[in-house]
Each structure stands twice: as C-alpha cells, then as structure tokens.
C-alpha cells in the first residue's frame, strides 16, 4: 500500500477529528443510573412504596436496645420494682453512665424514626398530587407519620428531658435541645394532626392491625398534655369517643399480656414482632437490628429456665399487692408461685413441662454448685412446678437474683430460652399504651382538677377488673417491703400512684407516669413514692432481703438506693454530645 504523505496527513487528521467528536459530545456518558438503590424519584411510583416508606418508621421500634434496655428499663428499674442482673446493673443504683450503649441506640433509632417521619410529608404530598396514592390513603400515611414522630418525641422527652426538635428533613443534626415542655407541646401538636388524619380503630382493616389509630393519638395527646400540666385538655383527649367507645378493659387481667391475645381490645398501641414459622433463631441481630423478632421476653425469665435471667423483681413489689389482687402473680412471680399464663399451661402444663426442668430434675442439676438442693426440685422433692422453691429460690447461677421474675414477660409458649431446642427469639408484641393506663391517667387528671368522685370511679374500673369483679373498698397494700403491716391509702393522688404501680409495673409506663407527677423538685413525687415503698437510702450497694420467707441474710440483688436529684432522667448519650456539640448534658451527669 502506497499513499502520498499529504493524503496520509489529511486522512489522519480527519480520522482524528472524527474520533474526538463523539467523545466530546456524549454528555450523558458520565450519567449512570443506580440499579441497586432507588432514588426518591425512582421509588414511590406505586402506592405500596409510599406505604413502605411509612412502614420503615415503625421498623425503628423493632430494636431491643430501644424497647427493653431504654424504655422498659427506664419505666421499671427506676422504680426499684425491678433490677438488672448482668452488664447493666448501674440502673439499680441510678448510676447510668452517659456512655451506656443502649440509650445511645435508643437516641439513634428515635431520631432515625423522626427523620423517616419527616421525609414522609413531602413524598406523600407529591404522590398524592400525582395520583399515586388516594387522598384517603395519603391522609392515613401522613397521620401515621405525625403519630410516630409525636410518640417518639414523647419517649425521648420522657427519658431525657428536653431534646432537639427536628421537624424537617435534611437538617445538619446540630440543633440544640428544646425544653421538655417544648417537646411535649410538639407531641401534642403532632397528635392533634394525627387525630384528624388517622383511621379510627373501628375502620382500620384487619390486615393493617398494628397501625396507629385515632384512639392511640388521643391517648398520647392526653398523656403529653399531662406532662404540660394541662389536665383539662388531657381530660378532653381522654374523653374523646374514639377512646371511650373503641377501647375496653379486657374482662380478665390475665388476658392483657397473653400471647394469644395480642392486639387486643385494651391495647392502644403495641410494637409488633413476628417470628414466621420456621424462621431462624440465629443471633445475627435478633437483639439489635431491625428484624422482626425479639429477645425481650425470655431475657427476663429465670436463669434456671432460660439461661438468662437478666432482670428480676423486687420481693417488695410482690408483698405490696393487696390480698385478692389477681395482678400479683400475673405481674411478679416468685418462689412457690405456679405460673398462671393459660398459654404456658396449655403448652407445657406449667413450669414442670419445660425440657430443662425435666432434665434438670432427672439429673439433680443445680444452677449453682453451692446450692443445697437441686434447682428443679420443689419443697416436696418432686419436680418443681413453681418459680423456684421457698427453701431455695431461683437465685440464678451466681446467686445474685432475688428469685422473683416478671410474669408479664413470661407468656410466649413458643419460647424455651437457651435450653433444649433454644427458642430464644419470639413474636410477642410489646404493649406501649393500653386503655387501663388511659383510665388511670384520667383518674389523675380528675384528681388534679378536683373531681375526686370521678377519679375514684376511674380507679374502680381498673381495680374491679384486678380483683376479678369487685375490688375491696379500702385500698391498702399487702405488706411493706420489710414485711410490716400497712395502712389504708386514702390520699387520692397516692391512690392513683399506687394503681399505676400495681397495674403498670412491668409494662412500658410506670416511671414515666411517676416522674410526670412532678413535685417541688423535679421527680420529687416519684422520689417520695419510691422512698415510701422501699425505704431508700444513699447506699449504692445491694442490700440483703429485709424480710421474706427466703431471707437468708445474704445478698440477692436488692438495691434500696434513693433516686438522686437530677437522676430522674437519663444522661444524654455521650457519643451524641460528641457528634453534636450543641447538646448539653443533664445536670448531675
């Protein structure tokens, strides 16, 4: 091939020019589409996507650090009705470190829930404008976002005091804390929005069971109004027919927490869990992350049954129930008590049916080498069917538990704990708010506004159920924590507080309600109430049982530390102060 140089040059330059042009002109060459993750424009083109966006807010609550180690611990450990055994014993003496990991997880999940809620409003509005969702569905979804945001602020402010208010998406996260009142005012505002937008319980389709309803919004609005001391407004919320017509006390107290009565008629809002048939029991996140299963329930079971036993009860709570109060063993079960859960009895025939009990009885197993008797023999040397024996309570492998355990959390018949075939994770929902609490809240509002007869009527509703028909006219605890006789409770406010304790201990509410009652200094009413019930002192160490059939003079994990001023709220998690220097720590931490 011969070619004149001039021609070569010409051809080459043309060629080069041609080669260069397409490269320069293809502007979209550097634009790629994400095929793994959706963008806001890519998603939300179908109504179920928009629903899914709202579902993800609920998902933030499927976290055991948030549910159990933050809200439940706060509601129950701070009252001294319950104690921790394990890594979190600082709760027993009110010495929680700002670096305690679970409250940081709580904070993180809560704000992620809030951010997800904040992202809903624009996206739903756009979807509604485009006809992706119907106006009715748009309303419900917006309502759920308002509700969940408000509820999250409710628990944040209840636990930490004032927290930063984030109400729009895309913030820098450097907002300083608002006051506690400002946050509860926001809760009220959000709940009011939700009340107008949500479906009524009566119209919510069965398939959507577990979603927020108008009634739940009124329940939280009322509670938030109480934090703001606006008892009239609270009463108005509690008296709304969405609440009073659609929710009822379960006739039998035992059914309130039963596994086969989840989402029952009394429940205003409960966090849903689900373990589908055949699903994994693996440890790859059942505690921490956004799964569908939870370890919350058997976490509390006696070590002798579950291998856990990470929280346990104060015998003083057990003593304090008035004679005839059915709630006693359905709340706190101790040595000599048979389990009363119908579900457990149906499945296992009681405690004696668990494989670990049967094998332990057969092999004379002791949970602790220094025990005198087999852990699985009753006082009669037969196989045990009670939560430990009187002669040797279930103190656990390290003898540091009281022998009393939470019967409200011992209801899921599918669980076995870490023994046998190791069913640890289950699908028991966790009730955050139920109608009995609304009635007690309403009683407090009536006391506060001078309607004592009205208050007594509300208390009676709750107490009658507790006593299986008609409650004794006189309200009087069984025994004091140190085994002494009691005197009748006559002060209306003290009656309400006592009912909060006996109805709601082991639920997700009690200390929130006690702190909300206020006092001359923050938490004064709660402090006095706990002191009156447990004779608290400044001692930071566990104490021997002062009284009881099992008192052996040794330490079995009972604290009687006074609630220090300022420690009625949790510390702001230290990592969050590190990330947002505008956060101030609560005084005293």
């Amino acid at each position, binding site marked *: 091939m011969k070619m004149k140089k001039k021609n070569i040059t010409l051809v080459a330059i043309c060629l080069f020019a041609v080669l260069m042009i397409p490269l320069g002109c293809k502007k979209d060459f550097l634009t790629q589409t994400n095929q793994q993750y959706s963008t806001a424009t890519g998603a939300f083109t179908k109504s179920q996507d928009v629903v899914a966006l709202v579902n993800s807010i609920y*998902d933030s609550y499927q976290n055991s650090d948030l549910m159990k180690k933050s809200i439940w611990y706060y509601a129950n450990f701070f009252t001294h009705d319950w104690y921790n055994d394990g890594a979190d014993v600082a709760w027993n003496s009110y010495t929680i470190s700002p670096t305690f990991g679970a409250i940081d997880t709580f904070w993180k999940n809560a704000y992620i829930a809030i951010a997800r809620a904040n992202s809903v409003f624009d996206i739903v509005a756009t979807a509604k404008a485009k006809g992706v969702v119907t106006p009715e569905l748009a309303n419900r979804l917006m309502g759920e976002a308002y509700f969940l945001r408000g509820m999250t602020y409710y628990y944040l402010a209840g636990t930490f005091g004032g927290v930063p208010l984030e109400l729009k998406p895309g913030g820098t996260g450097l907002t300083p804390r608002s006051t506690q009142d400002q946050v509860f005012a926001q809760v009220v505002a959000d709940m009011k929005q939700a009340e107008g937008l949500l479906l009524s319980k009566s119209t919510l389709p069965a398939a959507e069971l577990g979603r927020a309803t108008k009634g739940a919004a009124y329940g939280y609005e009322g509670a938030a109004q109480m934090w703001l001391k606006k008892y009239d407004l609270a009463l108005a919320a509690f008296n709304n027919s969405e609440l009073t017509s659609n929710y009822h006390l379960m006739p039998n107290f035992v059914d309130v927490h039963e596994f086969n009565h989840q989402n029952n008629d009394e429940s205003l809002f409960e966090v849903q869990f689900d373990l589908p048939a055949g699903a994994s029991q693996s440890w790859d996140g059942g505690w921490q992350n956004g799964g569908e299963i939870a370890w919350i329930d058997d976490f509390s079971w006696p070590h002798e049954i579950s291998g856990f036993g990470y929280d346990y009860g104060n015998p003083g709570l057990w003593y304090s129930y008035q004679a005839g109060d059915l709630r006693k063993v359905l709340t706190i079960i101790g040595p000599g008590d048979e389990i009363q859960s119908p579900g457990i009895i149906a499945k296992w025939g009681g405690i004696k049916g668990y494989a670990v009990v049967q094998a332990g009885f057969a092999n004379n197993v002791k949970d602790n080498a220094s025990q005198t008797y087999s852990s699985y023999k009753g006082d009669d040397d037969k196989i045990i069917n009670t939560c430990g024996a009187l002669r040797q309570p279930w103190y656990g492998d390290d003898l540091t538990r009281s022998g009393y355990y939470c019967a409200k959390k011992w209801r899921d018949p599918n669980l076995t704990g870490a023994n046998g075939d190791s069913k640890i994770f289950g699908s028991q929902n966790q009730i955050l708010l139920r109608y009995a609490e609304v009635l007690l809240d309403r009683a407090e509002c009536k006391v506060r506004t001078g309607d004592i007869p009205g208050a007594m009527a509300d208390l009676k509703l709750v107490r009658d159920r507790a006593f299986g028909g008609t409650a004794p006219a006189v309200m009087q605890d069984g025994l004091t924590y140190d085994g002494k006789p009691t005197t009748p409770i006559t002060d209306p406010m003290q009656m309400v507080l006592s009912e909060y304790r006996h109805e709601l201990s082991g639920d997700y509410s009690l200390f929130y309600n006690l702190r909300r009652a206020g006092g001359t200094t923050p938490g004064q009413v709660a402090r006095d109430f706990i002191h009156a019930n447990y004779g608290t002192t400044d001692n930071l160490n566990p104490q021997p049982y002062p009284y009881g059939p099992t008192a052996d003079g040794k330490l079995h994990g009972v604290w009687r530390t006074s609630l220090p001023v300022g420690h009625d709220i949790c510390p702001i998690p230290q990592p969050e102060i590190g*990330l947002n220097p505008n956060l101030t720590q609560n005084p005293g931490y």
Partner: protein
Amino acid sequence: MNKDLLFNKFNSGKKTLLVFLFTLVTCFAAVAQTRQISGTVSDADGTVIPGAGIKIKGTSTGTVTDVNGAFKLAVPDNATLVVSFVGYVTKEVAVGSGSVYNVKLAPAVSNLSEVVVVSVGYGTQKRTDLTGSISSISAATIAKLPVTSVEQALQGRAAGVQVTNNDASPGGNVSILIRGTGSLAQYGNSPLYVVDDYPLETGGINNINPNDIASIDILKDASATAIYGIRAANGVVIIKTKKGKKDGTVVEFNAYSAFQGKPKEYKLLNAQQFATLANDQAANDPVKQFTTLAAWANPQSLTNADWQNALYRSGLTQNYNISIRGGNDKIQSSSSIGYYDQKGIVIGSYFKRLTLGINVDYQPTKWLKSSTSAKYSYQDSNNPFGTGSLGNLAQLPPTLDGGSNVTSQISDGKGNYGFFNPVYTYVAKYNNPVYGINTNQYKNISQFFNTNSSLEATLIEGLKIKTAAGITIGASNNAYFQPEDDRLVNQYGSQAGATQNAFFNQSLNTAFDWLWENTLSYDRTFGKHTVNFVGGVTEQELTNNPFSGSGVPPNAQIRDISQVSNLKLGTTAQNIQSLASQFVRLGYNYAGKYFITGTVRRDGSSKFDVGHKYGTFPSGAVSWKAKEEDFLKGVDWLTNLKFRGSYGEVGNEGPIGLFQYEAQFSSGSASTNSGNLGYPFNKVYQVGIAATSPENPNLRWETDYQTDIGADMAFLHGDLSLTVDWFNRRSKDFLLYIATPPQTGYTNESLNVGSMTNKGWEFALNYSHATSSDLRLGAGLTISFITNKLTGLNSGSTFITNPLNNPNGAVNLNGQGWTVYSETHIGQAVGEFFGYKSLGIIQSQAQIDALNANASAKTNGVNKFYYQALTGPGDRLFADVNGDGVVNASDQVSLGNPQPKFFGGLNLDANYKAWDINLYFYGSYGNKILNYAESNQETFQNRGFVGIENLSQEYYKNAWTPSHPSNEFTRIYYNDNSYLNSVPSSQWIENGSYLKLKTLTVGYTLPGEMVRKLSISKLRIYASTQNLFTITKYKGLDPEIGTQGGFGTQNGIDNGTYPSSKYFTVGLNVTF
C-alpha cells in the same frame, strides 16, 4: 523475507526442540566495501549473546549476532565497534589490524542505567531527560526473585515505595504504599496499575505473571503522575510486558520448585498442663462458678490436641514459564505460558495460576504501526482458615471431647473428628477447624482477560496519532459446600442443639471494562530546541455484575442454587462507572540542559453529581542537567549531575463508591433477624423503604498536592549512582466514613473530612563494577524516610479511630475494651496505638488498698476504686495519667505508631565466572507493633465470651502468684475479662524494627561450550532461600505486618496472620 538457515538446522538437528518455532531474521546492512572482520559476543561467563547489536561508531552501519553469538561485518580502517545488548553495558571496541574480535559484555546492574527508557504514561522518555520522580525495575531484577506477584517484586527495589506482605498466604496479600498513606478509606491507598498502556480497573495485579514483565516504572511525584489525573494520587505503576525483538528468536524456559518449611509456632499449653490449670482454677474459685469437664479430672489420660501441628504443614511451590519471542522487521511477537502452583503451609490453602500472554507488533509500512497485547489468567485458590484466624488457633483448648461415640483426637484418620463438648459452656463455642477444612468443599475460580490493540500513524516526522482500544474481563466463580453435621446431636442429643443443615453458596461476579483512547503526539528537535507533546482523549467504562445465592441443598450431591431450600440471594444489580478524560503534556528542553514539562488532565467521572463531575489536575516540573554545563563537563569524578523540581495536583476517586452523591432508598434485607426495614402488621410482614444513605451532592475526590525536589548523580564513570528526592505530599479532602448526628436521619456518612501530609526523603544508591572480566560486584540500596501526619479534620473531631463496628475486611479484635485501640490525633501519624500505660503488676493488697483510698479521697467517694472493684494483687497496674486518682477512659494515651521511621532494601550481587550470588535484605526501623496475639495468650478467659482458652507456656510459667511474684505477667483467672488486665495498653506495644534476609540466591551458568551442543545458548541453575533469618526484637512470630483489610488505621496489628516461613528453592533458566 529471506528464509532463515537456522530454521532448517533446528528441524534437522535437534528433535527435542521441535515444539518451539524459531524465526530469526538477521539484518544485513549494506556497507561500504572495506575489510571483513568476525567474532563472537558473549557475556562475562562466556555465554554467547545472540541478537547483540554491533554498530560502526558514527555510522548507521551494523549487524547483529546470530544464534551462536557470532557476527561478521565489513569495517573501514580505524573503525570503532559499538557492541550493545539490552541488559548489558554497551562496549566500544577499537578495530585494529586483527580480523577476529571476541567481545565480552558486562551485565548492567543499575536500575538507573543511562540508556534506560522510562514509561511516563502515554509515551516514553529517556531516563536522563526525566523531570519527574520515577523509579524503575527491570526484568533482570524481577527474574532474581521467585515472586508470585508484581507487588512483591517492588519490595525494597524502589525508594519511597513501601511494600509489606500482610501475610504469607498463597497468592499473597500485599499492601503497597507509594510515598505514604494519603487516604483512610478501605483500600484507599492502592496505586493505579497501567499494564501495557491499559489502566487496570478490573481484576487484580496478581493476574500478571511477573515472568512476563519487561519493566516496571513507578511514577511517584505529581509531575509524573498527573497525566493519570483523578486516579493518580497514590502513584502509578506502569508495567510493560516483554515483546518480541526485531531480530532473532529467543525461547526461554524458567522453572523452579520451592519447598516451604512449617512456620514458627506459638508455644502453648498441652492438654495435661491445660487441664491441670483448669482444675487448679476450679479448686480456687471462691464462688464455685467455674467447673471443669469430668474428663479433665485426670489430665494424664487426655489426648493432646496440638492445633498448630494439625493445621500447619510444609508447602511446595512449582512455577513454570515458557516463552518464545522474536520477529522480523515488520512483525514481532511474543507468547508465553506460565503455571504457578503453590500448596500453602496451612492445610487447605493453595494458589494455582495459569497465565497466557501474547504480544504482537506489526509495522506494515514506515508510517503505520499496530500493537496488540492479550493476557489471560486463570486462578484457583483457597485459604479456608482465613488469614487473621490463625491467632484464634492459639486460643483453642488443647484437648477435645470425643464423647463416647467418636474420637478425642483432632482427626483419627478414619473420617472422625474430635469436638469440644457443646454442653460444657466453657468450651462450647469452639469448633474443630480441621473438621471444617477437611469436610467443606471449596472452589474459587477467577479468570482475567485483557486485550488492548493500538494503531499508530506517523503523519510527518515526529507527529503521530494513535487510537487504542481494549477490554478487560474479570470473572470469579466461587462455590462453597458444607455438609450436614449431626455429630453433636448424635452424641449429646437435643441438649447440643439441632442438626446443622448442609449449606451451599455460589457466587458469580463478572466485571467488565472497555477503554478507548486517542492520542496525538509530537516529538522533535530543532537545533538546540527539543519539544515534545502528547494530548488525547480517553474513555473507560466499568460494569460490574454480581450474583450470589445460598441455601440448603436437597442432598450432598446437588450444587444447584435453583434446588436449594431457604434460598438467600445476594445483590445482583449491575453497576456501571464511566470515566471520560482529556489530557495534555508539553515538554521542552534547551540544549539537553534545561527541561520543562507541564501536564494537565481533566477527568470526568460518573461517581460525582452534576456540576462536580469534572476535576482538573495540573502539574509542572523543571530539571537542569548541571553536568552538561561547561564548568562540569570536564570534571572527571562526576559522571552525572541533574537537579529536578516539580509541583502538581492529582486525585484519588478510588475510595468513593458509586452514587454516593444521591440519597439511596432501600428496603434492607429480607432477613427476619436483622437489617430489614419492614414491619409485620397483623403478623404479616410488609416491606419498608427508607433512605439508608444520605445525599452528598458535594462529594469530591481526594486531592494530593505534591512538591518534589530531587537530584540524580553518578560517579566513578557511572559505576556509582545516587538519586535523592525530597517530597511533600499534602492530601486534602480525604474521605472518611464518619459518625454523624442521628438527628440528620443517618448514623454514618462518607464525607471529605480531613487532610494529612507525607513528607520524606528517598535515597537510591547503586553500585556496579566489573573488576575483571571474571568478577563483577554490584550493590543497590534504597532507603525511604517518610513522616506521616494528620493535619486537619473538619468533622468537628480532633482525632480518628480504627474502623468501628467491624466493617467488612477489618480485623475484629475481641475483648473488653478492644473497641478502640488506635486513635490518631491531629499532628500524629495515622494508625497511632491508643490505650493505657502499664506500670507493671500490683504486688500486694496494701498497694491496691492505698490506691483505692486515694481514689475515694480524690473523688469525694464517687469512685471508690482506683481501677476496677475486683482489682487485687496480681492484676495489672495502669497509670493514672491525669492524676485524678482513678484509672478510666481519660487515662488512655498514645502508645506508639506502626509507621516506620525509615525502611529500605539492600541488594548485593556478585558474579564470578559462571557463578552468581544475590543477597536481598529488607528492613524497617522504628515501627511499633500491637501484639494482640500475645495479649490473647495471656488471658485464660476467652475474649469477649464465656469460656476459657489456651495460654502461652511463658505466661503459664511466669504468671503472678503470691509465692511467685512477677512484674510483667498478671495472675491467671478463668474469669479474667472482668478484671480488664488485657485491655489495649503499653504492655502489648513492641518494637517492630526488623532486618530480614529475604532472599539468598546462588546461581551457576553452565559453560557455553557444554550447552551449545544442546542448542541452548544459556543454562543457569540456581538455588535460593527466602526468609532465611530476621533480626528483630519483636517477640511475635513475624514483624512484617502491614495494614489489614485495606485500612490505613489498622496497621501493625499482630492478631495471628498467616505466618511466613523459610523457602528453599531450586530452579533453572534456559534460553534457547
């Protein structure tokens, strides 16, 4: 084309070599008629050199030697012959009256040889004309060391390049840092590899057979690297593979076998000691919590489980390479086949690689040229025990419980494997790793194919246009099968849990990229002015297609994802990245003395948002060849003196993932246990969707600003050369995945947050001298001093830590207090160790009582204890650094840095007659090691879990007891996690300086006459040993510990990596 005589000669004469096709073209030049001379060209030991060039000085007349190294040439009177061959020092021979001239050439030892042409990216330059800082490594250097990968060949050979074998697993796990750490992102410090002009994005550099490499040029300063713009911040390694020569054919066969000894082992307790210790602990446990297994009651009856002995074996490596290279004026080709097969020293570990390579260059006319290169690699490798897991081996209790059914041996050779009693909680978490390695089945295949073709036309003198296109395909296909396991259930019933289902996982990943580049270059000299220019446009598009699935197969035979139950699929989304760039480099020199170069690259990348897609990376450099000045020309002792200076900006987009600029919505995983975003309404799961990563429209590449000042010197007529460089590399906007306030809706975000500097000096000294034709001595030394410093963070924090929450690939250090073990504050070098200061051991109760009393007094009773409530005699005494009476998190201090003060390599070469010897040392000075493995062997409780683990003999024998006090070793306690003695502290920080004799090679080249009868032009046999000795004070197994998981902040942590051991290699190099 004239037929070659030799072809016939081979056909007729040497049947054994028929498999090789030889073509050899000898160029006969037309020469003015004078007189005929002849001769041979050979090397110092008499081996003939075919293809050597013989030129008459001052003319273009010449010839090349034939296959026997012989030549004939007509020469005028008083001519001088210039005899040259690549890899040898060019020699001038004056033609006298004789007619036979046998010329011996000395090998060129210097990497910095004057004649060397250096790849600078989109072109080459003579080394003497460089303005930037570039280190080069020749094929001859690589050939001396039996290495698996290119990276290993770089170690110690190039100043400023720190290469660390992170572990010694087959296939190699090597980290490479060019001029220090500039990024903190995972694998954020990898250089760009450009292989035969193709920037490698798909498939790793270990797909390239080191035997095929002709040259490696390492572009270090910004002036040199800027032509690669946004991918250049960590330096650029340009690799050229061997091509055929225009004249002659060379067939090479290289082979070696290497025997690898078992590694050093930890000295641990045997079964008898372990059980005795456990019994003692149980007897002394005040609360009787700790019990032992019934079988341990009689330690003498126990079978010892020596895990290290069971897991380690001797290894064997075989490596074969054969190549044929040659051509004529118009076509040159090279083809090679390589096979590498290593059986690792940990059972189940191996690495096999088959490589094929072809290079074809075709120049049909004077003005048109094409070049095509194709490479294929097939790898089959496995490392079932994992690299960091070997530290865990030392934890395993040295005795097994076979139960009544099986065996108490690790393996009884009949298919039975002992196990740890699953009911006894103190050993329940352990598995017998030999069981898994022997019964699980693995197949990890990866394939790599790269081809690149270019067409270049010379338009007018010096002006060329070129278009090049190529593709790379990387495909991996991994399968893993784990059989059903019911051993424990059979033995212990349901107490031991459920039968473990069989499991099968298959993953396929196809990565593909294409490249198209068009360049225009101009290179001409006008009088004293020389200009060169290259400019071009390039596009590259990368596509990645993953697929993986796993589940329970229906039986032990089926390996089919479509038939498994509990199917779980991994991500299968295709993702694409595109890059579009323009670049230009302009060079000018005046009179060969004053050089100036300017380079700009404008890179566009789809990784960034609209408006931020393009980055521009400029650089400039000057150099001055002082030696060429009149006042130095006559200075005889100074052979060369050149000064260089450069400044430039380059980018690093490597750490940035795709689409990080936009908010990404996801529904999480489908798992019911974790990670999903949905929720069950009425106990029926509904999907949830949420934004799981935030938008970051301002996301930028990391940028390096680098200044370099250097000098090249040569003395002793070129025998001694020295290159010195000072550099200041300032890395800005480095990317970090950092915690963000959750009020944003996210807990973490990747942001451009910080800056750091690497300043340093590099020295490369080379010496080569032939004292006689029989003896030649050479030495090469590289030393690099690099000071790394974190200079700024705009995230609000003043420090960075080791990666938290165990991201993929990171080292997982278990144990109380081990979440953070590295904290680098502004002003410190990255990777700084962080923890408590150990002051020894608490000797008495009185001592701790006093400390506790002081703590109580100083804190007004808030803290009653100096350290832990449990602390007593025999526990570690940590320093109360801030003097507040208590030891807590605020008493943690910086404990030392894993980065060396300097590092370098020393090569010593000698050739005497037919013998050659090479010693290669590599060393590092001033680096600290965090000996986590040691801390693990000084705890009886299993880190972070319930249970006990094995101890070192040293600890066992020297542990503190009241009657045998120690100020170094704590007391032994079965529950010692809660005593917090083994938290990160100065106790575990050791001096990691070392000097290793990496290689010692002795070779012998058979005499030329002997091998010539076999038509072999050269036959060298050699024996080599690697890792013969290490001089170090480090107490662990091997002080050569690099970064782990690709994290710059996880450096120098010894958690028991795959150990290195001695190799003994024998090999041969044959050239036909």
